């Protein structure tokens, strides 16, 4: 029998390529919009970058934050702070003993824009012009440090790094903090801000980005036969997690429960997922076992599905292996078709989508799937949202990262 503490979601916050907050992001996702846009800058021409577009955030951080905040935070921290403020307000700005309030906010890449700006400054102007805030801006724990400072979270501030699984792993770790009794409330999520010519060139060099330059909005097409790679995105998602008893005591609105956390590592290859999905299967099985949710109650799955030729199908087969015939009643959504790939922010934004899908009984669509891959063995929600059943239902959010990191979260209706 499970005796562990139930962990519930009471606040949501985000800034994404689809919108500057959760409501606009969710509305755009349900409407099947794409956040991919051509570069405003002349990077492609100037540097010979083969990719000419990305999914930049819809509302620039400078429109939301004060100038001193922009100047002392790397964009990865700016996005995290925007999302954390929204999530905290959405949760009703709970009164919490600071020693019982934690923060876990991850980034896959870290403060790379600050790092690169610092290098430019050094080469162009010399060491005397290096800004003193450079180190606290570029360090990968900077986003969570700012969130911790802002909210006075003193139970611990952590930044788990696992590439594209970072945001989900952060949420999983936050669940563990509450279950272990180290915190009553944890603000958790992920952020990323690496739309800059250097990382774009580097991702392009690894041949993982879509080159569909003539159609940015159609470039992210998970499970379509003509998919050719992911679309780099940016942004952040943050959730407020609480022990169910803490939430109940203050009469908080509960969106959903994070019922189970499953983690595994492939131990196989630095970038390629293990081809049989063995690690992904273990992560999902661990998460289901941890949750106590039966496979028959899983009605929705937010796939990691980045729109790469190899990765999408490995995940689909893994889901089928874990759920068996119960996969027949799972509405599969690949929301990166709209948001692009937010790397360290992806798992957090997709957890928010999963939570809202259960709370509103609506699975978001997958766009751009003109010709579904014949090897797809699951029921893909295409173009239009789909209603989910009433009653106690659950969903899985998968996130996998370069390095072989696998995270599955089981989310259950409130």
């Amino acid at each position: 029998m499970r005796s562990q503490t139930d962990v519930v979601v009471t606040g949501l916050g985000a800034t994404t390529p689809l919108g500057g907050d959760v409501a606009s992001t969710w509305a755009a996702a349900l409407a099947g919009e794409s956040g991919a846009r051509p570069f405003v800058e002349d990077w492609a021409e100037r540097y010979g970058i083969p990719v000419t577009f990305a999914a930049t955030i819809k509302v620039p951080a400078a429109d939301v934050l004060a100038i001193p905040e922009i100047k002392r935070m790397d964009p990865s921290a700016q996005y995290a702070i925007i999302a954390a403020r929204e999530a905290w307000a959405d949760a009703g700005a709970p009164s919490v003993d600071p020693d019982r309030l934690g923060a876990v906010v991850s980034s896959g890449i870290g403060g790379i824009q600050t790092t690169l700006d610092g290098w430019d400054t050094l080469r162009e102007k010399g060491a005397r012009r290096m800004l003193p805030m450079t180190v606290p801006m570029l360090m990968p724990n900077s986003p969570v440090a700012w969130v911790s400072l802002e909210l006075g979270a003193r139970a611990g501030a952590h930044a788990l790094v696992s590439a594209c699984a970072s945001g989900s792993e952060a949420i999983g770790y936050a669940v563990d903090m509450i279950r272990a009794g180290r915190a009553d409330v944890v603000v958790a999520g992920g952020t990323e801000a690496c739309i800059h010519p250097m990382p774009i060139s580097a991702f392009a060099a690894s041949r993982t980005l879509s080159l569909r330059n003539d159609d940015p909005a159609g470039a992210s097409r998970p499970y379509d036969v003509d998919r050719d790679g992911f679309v780099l995105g940016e942004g952040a998602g943050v959730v407020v997690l609480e022990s169910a008893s803490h939430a109940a005591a203050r009469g908080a609105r509960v969106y959903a429960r994070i019922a189970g956390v499953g983690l595994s590592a492939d131990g196989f290859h630095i970038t390629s997922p293990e081809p049989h999905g063995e690690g992904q299967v273990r992560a999902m099985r661990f998460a289901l076992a941890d949750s106590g949710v039966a496979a028959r109650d899983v009605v929705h799955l937010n796939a990691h599905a980045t729109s790469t030729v190899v990765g999408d199908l490995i995940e689909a087969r893994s889901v089928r292996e874990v759920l068996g015939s119960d996969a027949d009643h799972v509405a599969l959504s690949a929301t990166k078709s709209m948001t692009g790939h937010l790397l360290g922010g992806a798992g957090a934004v997709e957890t928010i989508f999963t939570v809202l899908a259960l709370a509103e009984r609506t699975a978001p669509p997958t766009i751009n799937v003109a010709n579904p891959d014949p090897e797809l063995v699951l029921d893909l929600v295409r173009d239009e949202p789909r209603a989910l059943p009433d009653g106690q239902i659950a969903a899985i959010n998968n996130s996998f990262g370069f390095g072989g990191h696998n995270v599955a979260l089981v989310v259950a209706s409130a």
Partner: protein
Amino acid sequence: MAHSEQEILAGLAEIVSEETGLPAESVLPEKSFTDDLDIDSLSMMTIVTLAEDRFSVTIPDGEVKNLVTVSDAVSFIAGAQS
């Protein structure tokens, strides 16, 4: 070309304002960086770095502790230009 003290004050006020969020008009000559403007040591070093770049001067680290007020900084920068 040397900046006048008035130009230095205006430029410094802009730098301080962007660093702290205080209105530029509040960055008056008699204000103390620490006591009145609540600027910590890291922010002070940022202001020094930006001021060096803007006015093409060098403000030695050992000199920074002597820059108590905005006026001290304006005078130092004006003198360092020549």
